């Protein structure tokens, strides 16, 4: 994905939801994209399938899948691509399944739309797929309608639909947010196991840092439509560089520190995408800002081997943010 930009032409002017995103996902890799609501992570994911809602548009950049550029594909090519090479699991399983069609049919339809399986195969694969995502009594339930399924089961059905064509990339947009805490873990486990089985890459979009820590190889932190930090999960969690990543991690509850300190929430709100502040987009909420932050936007620079961040302070080699905070 190179220099991707997604803009919305609204009545109040052009809104840039995603601004110059650059990243790669390798085969079999699980990449987490984190950030607050409105940071552009969902738009980034939707643009991979060119599903940006009206009046949004991909205004520049390329999305390369192997050799092919998604942005340049014809209508028929993108149709073949969707659900076949790249599948997506959406946030809200309650509304993402069609209420008037039977669950089994909706899974079958995903396969029938592509050439990977014959009509017969598509039909026969439905029950095993539902069994694979651990829907109890799958044989009897293929003919159920979505309203007869629980939230967790609907999400399992969505996953079955997503993996039915054995895609090489699975995009999961906050797959557990709308679910009961008790089923979240099993859904995540399912996504991980299936991606291993299929040797598929996963792009996990979430604001749940704990989920990222347990699942992902690599993390991309987004803020106001930009990548502010990127690197291997281990280094990001151990050694967060960008002040925003740092605050995100501080706002996450930790079992081992329950008694030590109160949760810290990030003060202020993310900027209005239509009225972006000049300079670094995070500076109004940043504790460590310097004068340069208010006028000039920092580039994404390497701060550690394999770890990139977008911050002037880091480039000037100022002390570790942790140290500053303790003063």
């Amino acid at each position: 994905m190179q220099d991707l930009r997604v803009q919305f032409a609204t009545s109040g002017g052009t809104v840039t939801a995603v601004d110059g995103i650059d990243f790669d996902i390798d085969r079999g890799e699980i990449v987490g994209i984190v950030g607050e609501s409105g940071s552009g992570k969902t738009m980034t994911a939707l643009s991979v399938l060119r599903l940006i809602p009206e009046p949004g548009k991909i205004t520049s950049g390329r999305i390369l899948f192997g050799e092919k550029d998604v942005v340049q594909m014809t209508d028929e090519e993108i149709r073949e691509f969707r659900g076949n090479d790249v599948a997506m699991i959406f946030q809200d399983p309650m509304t993402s399944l069609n209420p008037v069609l039977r669950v089994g049919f909706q899974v079958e339809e995903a396969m029938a739309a592509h050439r990977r399986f014959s009509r017969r195969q598509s039909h026969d694969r439905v029950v095993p797929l539902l069994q694979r995502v651990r829907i109890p009594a799958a044989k009897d339930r293929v003919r159920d309608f979505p309203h007869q399924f629980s939230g967790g089961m609907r999400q399992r059905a969505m996953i079955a639909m997503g993996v039915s064509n054995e895609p090489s990339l699975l995009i999961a947009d906050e797959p557990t947010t709308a679910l009961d805490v008790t089923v979240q873990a099993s859904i995540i486990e399912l996504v991980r196991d299936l991606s291993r089985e299929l040797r598929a890459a996963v792009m996990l979009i979430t604001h749940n840092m704990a989920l990222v820590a347990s699942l992902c190889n690599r993390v991309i932190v987004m803020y106001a439509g930009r990548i502010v930090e990127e690197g291997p999960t281990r280094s990001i969690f151990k050694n967060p560089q960008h002040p925003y990543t740092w605050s995100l991690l501080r706002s996450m509850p930790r079992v081992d520190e329950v008694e030590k300190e109160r949760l810290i929430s990030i003060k202020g709100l993310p900027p209005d995408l239509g009225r972006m502040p000049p300079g670094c987009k995070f500076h109004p909420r940043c504790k460590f800002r310097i004068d340069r932050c208010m006028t000039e936007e920092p580039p994404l620079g390497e701060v550690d081997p394999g770890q990139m961040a977008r911050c002037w302070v880091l480039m000037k080699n100022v002390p570790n943010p942790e140290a500053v905070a303790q003063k």
Partner: protein
Amino acid sequence: MAQAAPVIQPDLELSYEVPEQVTLLTDAWRRLRRNRLALLGGAIIAVLFMVALISIVWTPYPVWLQAVGPTYQPPSLHHLLGLDQAGRDILSRIMGGALITVEVGIGSAVILSLIGIPLGLLAGFYRGRVDTVISFFINIWYGIPDLLVALILVFVLSDALHLIPRGVFVIIVAFSLTRWMDVARLVRGQSLALREREFVEAARMAGGRDLALIFRHIFPNALGPIIVQATFAIPAAVLFEAFLSFLGLGLPPPTPSWGAMASDGYHGMDFAPHIVLAPTIALSITLMAFNWLGDGLRDAFDPRMRR
């Protein structure tokens, strides 16, 4: 079919402007002013009222005067809309018809509101047996062709029982007697919801009597939807009158009803289409204007109900 990018509503549009503190009516008026179609409807209605008023004191020729020129004469400078099969000036008759239209429309809206609002308030406020009885009538009404019942009522009231002479009034009465259920159902729903609201509760605690509660607290808050419903009743009543008169069951000749004029002209349509065109076009434009205004009012009073 080209595979257009799927249209999905972005979250951006879902955020509403923070409403300022304004009263229901000023807020509605502000929204209405932005609706061009509704304004156009309002303007047409204003012209209709003016023409109706003018026709009381002046028309180019008396509406009933026959043989002011040759029969079936097409439009000319002397008679802008031509003459009809009896040699009457059509423009004058259209003007007279405007008055009848306004009378029927406004009269029906007022009378059916006078029947529907109290019954709806009673059903919604007292619930129980009162509600059961009123709701029974409302439900029966949804199972019948109401205009045809109204048609029979006109016939029974004036021709058979000679209770009310055949004229505008009997049409208003018959229409209102079969159409109050719409308003009643709406008001019933509104007062069912409103009677549970905090401010009504508070007024009740303060010892307000039922009548005071109904008319001071419930009725004013249901006013917006009532106005919308009444506005939609006007074109329905106008259409009913035209429908009756067209069939020869409405206003007796030589009343210049648009429906009756269309019926007169329809027989000479082959060689004198102007006779039938004038009243039907006037009628269609009038109905359109009221529907546009009604749509605009509905959107203005309840932006969430927008269709």
